[in-house]
């Protein structure tokens, strides 16, 4: 049987190379897309899967529900909750705090900036990261312990065999010697917890207000529980927990007020969930939109389905050509069963050839996809081969069953007597049309969504941010609250050649620290509005060039412009300070026009704020995030942890980077930060969409290709079958042009129907994806028009050759066909 099948395929390859090639290439492409996307999706779903029992490792998240702001989830929680967790919840097996900070590590003359997690000694009881060296139970017990990642150890020592070695660490000016107690193994899969180093929380850190105040967000708290039931119990009691521990006096900064549960909540999210959950969580892990990932898998499956449709289409269309073979075999005594098995077998062998092609394509494409999507995706043969085997088998069956059923059912007498080849009749023709419609409907829907994704990605990159992003460089790290050094830095930067202006501010593109407070318009009865605060030092207006909608910008000659800053103004009760609002704050505070707000007074506690100007919203955030109402102060005093920003001209970006770095290193030799462009700081906001856009483009390009391969095969078959008909029509007086229009219309009708069918679902999908963005494009009819016209043009080109040949046929010649 196998020999018969192989011999048949070889014979077909010789007699109908085009058909076999279309079939195998179509299937290969379909399977390759399916395979690559499945690997990609599997990667996205496997985050933290390599951490043992990660589903029972839970992160405590804070929820802030403030008037005037959308509710916000924060992965960073107040550490004051930490000691109570153990006492309140016996279900908890272990907990650890987890606060990250930049550490300068030094071993001999090698220096490394390490993203270091300050944790409790119980860390490895909660998150059982694998160690390459050392003992998890004792690794963090001594206060001077430091655990290094394998990469960091390599960078510092050139080897990982460094247990017991002493290194010098520097964190916020605390320079100490620490002993390497363990080395983290390189994770075997994607993980969200991948610090460069781990160290016990230093004593000085614990004295910071975020360890003692409910209103702060310090870092992560991780909890290990036994199972989902225990998790449920804890979740249910978290409101109670907040009421019990966060209640306090209304003016008590360390508590969350009389009714903390009204504006503050806690929730749990497991490590297996964070990668999808954290999309809109502040301080969360690098996240991916789960629905987008699922759509990717859907695209993979659909691409394969398109290829299957192709194969079925071509096979049923061509069944007629093999009718005589069937008739003769049957006359010679073959049973229907034998023929059926033979045809299905042929389909499976064809698919297997396609599968081999797919594997090769995948091998070639995977490094590109990994680079494109910024993942560490690799070909995992332990998964790929069994998966491909299953796919080939299923695909082969799907491709083979129906055509085999048709073929094996031919009646020999009927076939041998007929003058024309059977084509499976009108029902098979309907099936073929139906399949072409479905193929193109999917291809068109993909293409529309692809266009929308790409337009949104592009929109986010070119969005009007409310300031002039070109020609600005921003320090990659913030600086200590040291007046002398801050002034020294401003001076050093100002005297750097090429620098036009310099300023310090807490908020910069891609905000890393947020400070919020409550205000109310004086004389208004509405409640408090929770606003984001920023304080600027230096020439901010020239550096960022915000757009003033009304009023004026700060000016150091006005006494009340110079405030203590947003972090400290409330320490001067009874005073009035001048501030600038952003557009969102303006509308949240109830003003209709920017002009009407100028001169208005706001109350915050016992301090009065006078609005002197209103600016357009400055978008320092992701397009997914809602713009916060913001109030900006001006100060000449030092501020807590500001970034430095510089506007430059007359020199290239890279030259400026080097010059500014020199100036910075003079003032902060121990904090080796550089300068970044706005683009660099904000690219994380749109890079995933951009990468998705590429992936979608490629996938939908392939989907259209597969659909066109199918259309081409079908058209060449139909052209063959209809030659005779064209002869008749021409003999009856049809011109070539009439025939051409008729044939084109017949070929393109299913494509048109597909476009109509695809429109609504594509619109819904695109709309729901876009709803995840606060700054977004609108789906336009142009998206549809472009995709539909391009698709029809491509489809028309695909069938044009066949159609032209058909339409030009000499009638006498055409009538002789068959």
């Amino acid at each position, binding site marked *: 049987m196998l020999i018969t099948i192989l011999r048949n395929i070889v014979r077909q390859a010789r007699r109908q190379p085009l058909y076999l090639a279309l079939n195998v290439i179509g299937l290969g492409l379909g399977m390759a897309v399916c395979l690559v996307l499945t690997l990609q999706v599997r990667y996205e779903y496997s985050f933290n899967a390599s951490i043992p029992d990660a589903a029972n490792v839970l992160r405590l998240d804070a929820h802030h529900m403030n008037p005037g702001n959308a509710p916000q989830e924060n992965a960073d929680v107040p550490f004051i909750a930490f000691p109570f967790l153990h006492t309140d919840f016996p279900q908890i097996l272990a907990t650890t705090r987890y606060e990250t900070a930049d550490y300068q590590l030094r071993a001999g003359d090698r220096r490394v900036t390490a993203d270091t997690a300050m944790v409790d000694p119980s860390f490895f009881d909660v998150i059982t990261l694998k160690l390459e060296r050392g003992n998890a139970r004792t690794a963090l017990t001594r206060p001077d312990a430091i655990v290094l990642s394998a990469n960091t150890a390599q960078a510092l020592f050139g080897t990982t065999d460094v247990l017991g070695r002493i290194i010098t660490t520097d964190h916020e000016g605390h320079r100490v010697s620490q002993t390497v107690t363990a080395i983290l193994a390189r994770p075997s899969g994607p993980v969200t917890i991948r610090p460069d180093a781990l160290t016990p929380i230093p004593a000085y850190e614990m004295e910071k207000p975020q360890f003692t105040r409910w209103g702060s967000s310090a870092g992560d708290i991780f909890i290990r529980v036994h199972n989902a039931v225990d998790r449920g119990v804890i979740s249910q009691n978290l409101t109670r927990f907040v009421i019990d521990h966060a209640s306090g006096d209304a003016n008590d900064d360390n508590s969350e007020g009389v009714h903390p549960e009204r504006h503050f909540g806690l929730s749990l999210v497991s490590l297996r969930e964070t990668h999808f959950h954290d999309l809109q969580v502040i301080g969360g892990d690098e996240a991916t939109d789960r629905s987008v990932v699922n759509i990717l898998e859907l695209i993979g499956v659909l691409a394969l389905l398109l290829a299957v449709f192709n194969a079925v289409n071509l096979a049923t269309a061509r069944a007629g050509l093999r009718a005589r073979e069937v008739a003769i075999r049957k006359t010679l005594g073959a049973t229907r069963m034998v023929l059926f098995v033979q045809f299905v077998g042929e389909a499976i062998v064809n698919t297997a050839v396609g599968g081999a092609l797919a594997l090769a394509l995948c091998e070639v494409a995977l490094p590109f996809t990994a680079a494109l999507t910024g993942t560490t995706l690799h070909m995992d043969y332990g998964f790929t081969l069994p998966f491909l085997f299953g796919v080939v088998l299923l695909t082969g069956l799907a491709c083979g069953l129906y055509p085999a059923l048709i073929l094996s059912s031919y009646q020999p007498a009927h076939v041998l007597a007929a003058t024309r080849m059977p084509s499976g009749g009108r029902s098979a023709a309907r099936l073929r049309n139906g399949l072409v419609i479905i193929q193109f409907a999917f291809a068109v829907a993909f293409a529309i969504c692809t266009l929308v994704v790409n337009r949104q990605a592009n929109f986010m990159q070119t969005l009007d941010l409310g300031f002039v992003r070109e020609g600005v460089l921003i320090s990659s790290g913030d600086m200590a609250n040291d007046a002398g050094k801050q002034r020294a830095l401003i001076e050093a930067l100002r005297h750097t050649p090429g620098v036009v202006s310099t300023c310090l501010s807490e908020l910069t593109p891609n905000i890393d620290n947020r400070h919020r407070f409550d205000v109310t318009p004086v004389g208004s009865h509405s409640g408090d509005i929770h606003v984001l605060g920023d304080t600027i030092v230096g020439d901010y207006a020239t550096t960022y060039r915000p757009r003033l909608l009304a009023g004026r910008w700060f000016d150091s000659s006005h006494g009340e412009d110079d405030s203590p800053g947003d972090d400290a103004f409330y320490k001067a009760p009874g005073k009035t300070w001048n501030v600038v609002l952003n557009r969102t704050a303006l509308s949240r505070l109830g003003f209709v026009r920017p002009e009407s707000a100028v001169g208005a007074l706001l109350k915050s506690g016992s301090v009065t704020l006078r609005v002197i100007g209103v600016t357009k919203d400055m978008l320092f955030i992701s397009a997914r995030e809602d713009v916060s109402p913001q109030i900006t102060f001006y100060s000449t005093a030092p501020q807590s942890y500001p970034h430095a920003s510089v506007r430059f001209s007359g020199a290239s970006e890279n030259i400026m980077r080097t010059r500014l770095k020199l100036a910075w290193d003079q003032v902060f030799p121990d904090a080796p930060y550089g300068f970044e462009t706005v683009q660099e700081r904000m690219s994380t906001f749109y890079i995933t969409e951009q990468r998705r856009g590429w992936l979608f483009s490629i996938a939908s390009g392939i989907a259209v290709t597969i659909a066109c391969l199918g259309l081409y095969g079908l058209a060449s078959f139909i052209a063959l079958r209809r030659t005779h*008909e064209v002869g*008749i029509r*021409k*003999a*009856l007086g*049809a011109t*070539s042009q009439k025939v051409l229009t008729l044939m084109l219309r017949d070929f393109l009708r299913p494509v048109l129907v597909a476009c109509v069918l695809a429109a609504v679902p594509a619109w819904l999908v695109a709309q729901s994806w876009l709803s995840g963005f606060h700054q977004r494009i609108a789906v336009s009819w142009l998206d549809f028009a472009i995709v539909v016209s391009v698709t029809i043009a491509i489809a028309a080109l695909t069938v044009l050759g066949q159609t032209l040949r058909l339409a030009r046929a000499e009638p006498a010649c055409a009538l002789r066909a068959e």
Partner: protein
Amino acid sequence: MLIELSHIQRLYRSDEVQTTALQDIDLQIETGEFVAIMGPSGCGKSTLLNILGTIDRPTGGSYRFGTQELTAMNEAELAKFRREHLGYVFQSFNLIDELTIEENIELALIYREMPKSERRERVAHAMDHVGIAHRARHYPSQLSGGQQQRAAIARAIVGQPSLILADEPTGNLDTDNGAQVMDILQRLNDEGATIIMVTHSPSHADLARRRIDMLDGQVVVSVRNAI
């Protein structure tokens, strides 16, 4: 004079061989004639009919129809000529499988500008004429050979052509059906149509007014039947 062929030649060239299907044909046919063409298989009868029907072009010579020189016309003009003047009955019926009998017949009219209602009326009339009205909604594969041939004739006459070309219209039919088809053709001729018919049946040829015998791509005899 309706048709005037002079020095018509049709060569088929393939890579090595050259076949002469028609060789120096001179032929005149008057309006209202009923001509039968006979000859052995392969002598060029169908080729001649195809050239008369302008679905094949001669490689040499001239073909005048009334006052028009057809060999000088382009493809679109020929298509127009066919739909205005010609009715075709093929040897192998040549009905389109995917269309019903009614639609097949209508095909001869849809390339003319004519309101749908008139088209329908003419189709119904043509089907009556050949006696297959009760099969209007059937597909060709559901009809017998004789019925299919009559449908093909209905399609040829529905446009009320001045010239009907029939290539072995009775070739695939039994005696009875053959006689019926000949009957229809004679009736059409009586009504004024010019008919040129290829046949292998001497008795059917005798029903025509004139008989042309062909051999190896040439006309050898042309005789008028006494009626």
